[in-house]
């Protein structure tokens, strides 16, 4: 941030250190080198930063909040789908991840305490432990996602595709943002292809117009994929030797309610967004480790540790809601 530095320099050379109301401070302030020019006291700077962070957390809550509303709408419309599909999630892995995140929140809180009390080594250890928790969470998440991609527990079209194309699966494994494995003709996702796909695939159930707008669940679920279609797909699937070990069990299940793909759509949307937040958290915790090793933090100045701590707790908190909402249905 060279611009910032030059800002401070100008300030210093201009001799404004004593201007303002009650004595402003520049970057050259010996006692508080971290104090920005437009704040009067370290307390004012800290309070401002903290209020700003809380406002940011409010935006985060609203950011996820819309997805929670989407979840509520889908779940109230298709309660059977959520009940059914939740069983495909690995509760053990989810529970371990919950524990890992809660522990990492604890180490983060301890880190803030260490920063406040000036224990540099302990702070660095706590930050590394938090980082380890975050990484552990992502590793477990990676295994969960990878397994689901293998057995086509994905969003949209891919959910109904029998496992046939290893190349396509390979692509899906490489990146959680990869497009659902599609047949070669469909891999270009131009909008034309999208509509062609929709026309070609009978798997999706169109609701009667009246039900599109009502929030209340339909008295009876709309007719789903015809059993014979499922049987045909299952037979095709069983005949393919390449699927050995990667059973797309849901495709063989005649009792699967229609629109089950929507569960996975919202599952990936919410856990994916949460995962992105964990990755961002790892980034800023890494930045804290660098700064803590440099000895930037102490009882006088620990604002970044405190704020990242708040961020990390909200990431944890979101997961604490996601875990029961997806893994513990029924």
């Amino acid at each position, binding site marked *: 941030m060279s611009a910032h530095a030059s800002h401070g320099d100008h300030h210093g*050379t201009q001799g404004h250190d004593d201007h303002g109301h009650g004595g402003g401070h520049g970057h050259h302030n010996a006692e508080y080198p971290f104090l920005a020019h437009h704040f009067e006291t370290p307390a004012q700077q800290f309070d401002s930063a903290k209020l700003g962070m809380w406002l940011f957390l409010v935006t985060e809550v609203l950011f996820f909040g819309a997805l929670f509303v989407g979840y509520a709408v889908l779940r109230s419309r298709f309660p059977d789908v959520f009940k059914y599909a939740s069983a495909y999630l690995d509760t053990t892995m989810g529970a371990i991840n919950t524990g890992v995140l809660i522990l990492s929140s604890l180490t983060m809180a301890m880190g803030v305490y260490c920063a406040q009390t000036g224990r540099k080594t302990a702070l660095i250890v706590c930050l590394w432990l938090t980082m380890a928790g975050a990484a552990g969470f992502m590793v477990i998440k990676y295994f969960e996602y990878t397994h689901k991609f293998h057995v086509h527990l994905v969003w949209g079209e891919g959910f109904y595709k029998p496992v046939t194309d290893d190349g396509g699966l390979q692509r899906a494994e490489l990146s959680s943002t990869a497009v659902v494995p599609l047949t070669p003709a469909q891999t270009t996702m131009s909008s034309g292809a999208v509509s062609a796909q929709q026309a070609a695939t009978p798997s999706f159930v169109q609701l009667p117009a009246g039900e599109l*707008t009502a929030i209340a669940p339909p008295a009876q679920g709309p007719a789903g994929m015809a059993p014979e279609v499922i049987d045909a797909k299952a037979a095709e699937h069983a005949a393919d030797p390449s699927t050995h070990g990667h059973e797309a069990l849901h495709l063989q299940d005649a009792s699967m309610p229609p629109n089950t793909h929507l569960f996975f759509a919202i599952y990936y949307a919410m856990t994916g967004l949460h995962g992105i937040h964990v990755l961002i958290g790892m980034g800023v915790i890494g930045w804290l480790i660098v700064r803590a090793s440099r000895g930037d933090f102490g009882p006088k100045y620990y604002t970044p540790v405190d704020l990242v701590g708040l961020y990390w707790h909200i990431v944890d908190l979101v997961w604490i809601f996601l875990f029961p909402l997806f893994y513990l249905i029924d």
Partner: protein
Amino acid sequence: MTTLPARPAAPTYDTPESDNYLIHDKGFLSWILTLDHKRIGVMYTVSVLLSFLVGGIFALLVRTELLTPGRTFIDADTFNHFFTLHGAVMVFLVIIPSIPAALGNFVLPIMLGAKDVAFPRLNLFSYHLWIAGAICTVVSLVMGSFDTGWTFYTPYSTTTSAGGVVPVIVGAFILGFSSIFTGMNFIVTIHKLRPPGMTWFRMPLFLWALYATALIQVLATPVLAITLALVAVERLANIGIFNPAMGGDPVLYQHFFWFYSHPAVYIMIVPAMGIISELIAVHSHRQIFGYRFIAFSSVAIAIFSFIVWGHHMFTSGQSPLMNTLFSAITYSVAIPSAVKIFNWICTLYKGSITLNTPMLYALAFIILFTIGGLTGLHLATLSTDVHLHDTYFVVAHFHYTMMGSALIAMVGGLHHWWPKITGRMYNDKLGMIACAIVFIGFNITFFTQFMLGSHGMPRRYYDYQPEFQTYHVISTIGSYIMAGGFVLTAMYLIQSLVSGKRAPANPWGGATLEWECTSPPPYYNFHEAPKVGEPYDFSNLQWDERGEGYVTVKPTEAKA
């Protein structure tokens, strides 16, 4: 710079310009990487005005096409792209950032008596995000543009063959974060950076308005961000949440979208009202009438803004109960709006009005906003809305509020603070003429559209019945007149930069703190701690012939 002479606190009209924020640093990088809120405000202003030019050109193209039924000079598909671009550019790139980010950034810290906003780097980042959002819009144009309307309604937006939908959605997402960060910055600045003496009820009303606006920006915009992200994912990966063909719900999209976008229209209008409060009080040299009512009505509008979004969906299949509730709550927004109008009129009453360009814009605002607000009641009424929904009546209504009110206030505010921002005076006569041309052109353009709409002309249509043609021709001619007014405005404003008279510190006789520092303000806003007084107490201000500006007459400072 240490040799800078100590300056007197108040009038500095006879001190030669030695240092100000415009000449403090030189070079392109000193602007694009600046952390100074004033420079960021100026960059926003320039960017927003350039976008306004682009959006305006699209508007003129759309109006020109509508001169005749059927094809006039572009095909229907291009027409769809043009009105979409007009809407998206005007909403996301122009009106939403125009007052808070552009004028607000410049004025807020000085008015407050602070040296900068709370987070200068975040402020610069907001501007860079704005640039990134604008670039995404250009990328979208290159990739085939978009024809979804600025509302991106699903399932059309997820299935249209226009190639630029995803880039523009990414752009709107980024612009949303630009707006969120500006809002966060303003809230913290107002809470934490008020100097001693600047109590909440000594804050100028523009700051109250910016505060209310910032609350909406912070609380509503994240919902738009995630909604647009879902639309992009829907388009790229076909997840189906908004797709009725896959069991999803397009009306859920509309709820999400309007949960942001209704508050967003108050992001546009509330700060505009704040500007008008300043213009009316300063240019009628009279204590503002009903200060607390105006202040609280801003906050009340901000709160109401979150519970009226359903009035955009009266015909989307909402339940009758929801429709009734949303209709009733929508009516109640009229109360705080009317409180403001009446208070402004009471301020004018027996004021010593200076009829200059900013004042003329303020009067135009009152008239146009009254028309825009009252026609909103027709649309809030369930029975009439069914008839008027998606007609030109709606187009006319929101142009009266967004353009006739929000943008007119922005232009009025620009004229009010132009001497402060640039240090130059513009030609006031030309300013008043241009304002009159804009006002007349605006009414010819959009009042006609009320009639078009109530006669049944649907909005966004390329073709129309021959009986509508007269109205369309009148409306188009009005838009040309309006464009002429804005061209004239641009000409005399640019001319003022080149050869305008030097502006005194206080050309209008304002009592808020920004008029106490020089024009343009020094790099750190105040050489000495400003003395915070009543923002609308004009009794100590006197016209001074020598400096052609107002000076503060106080016993201790009279010798200056």
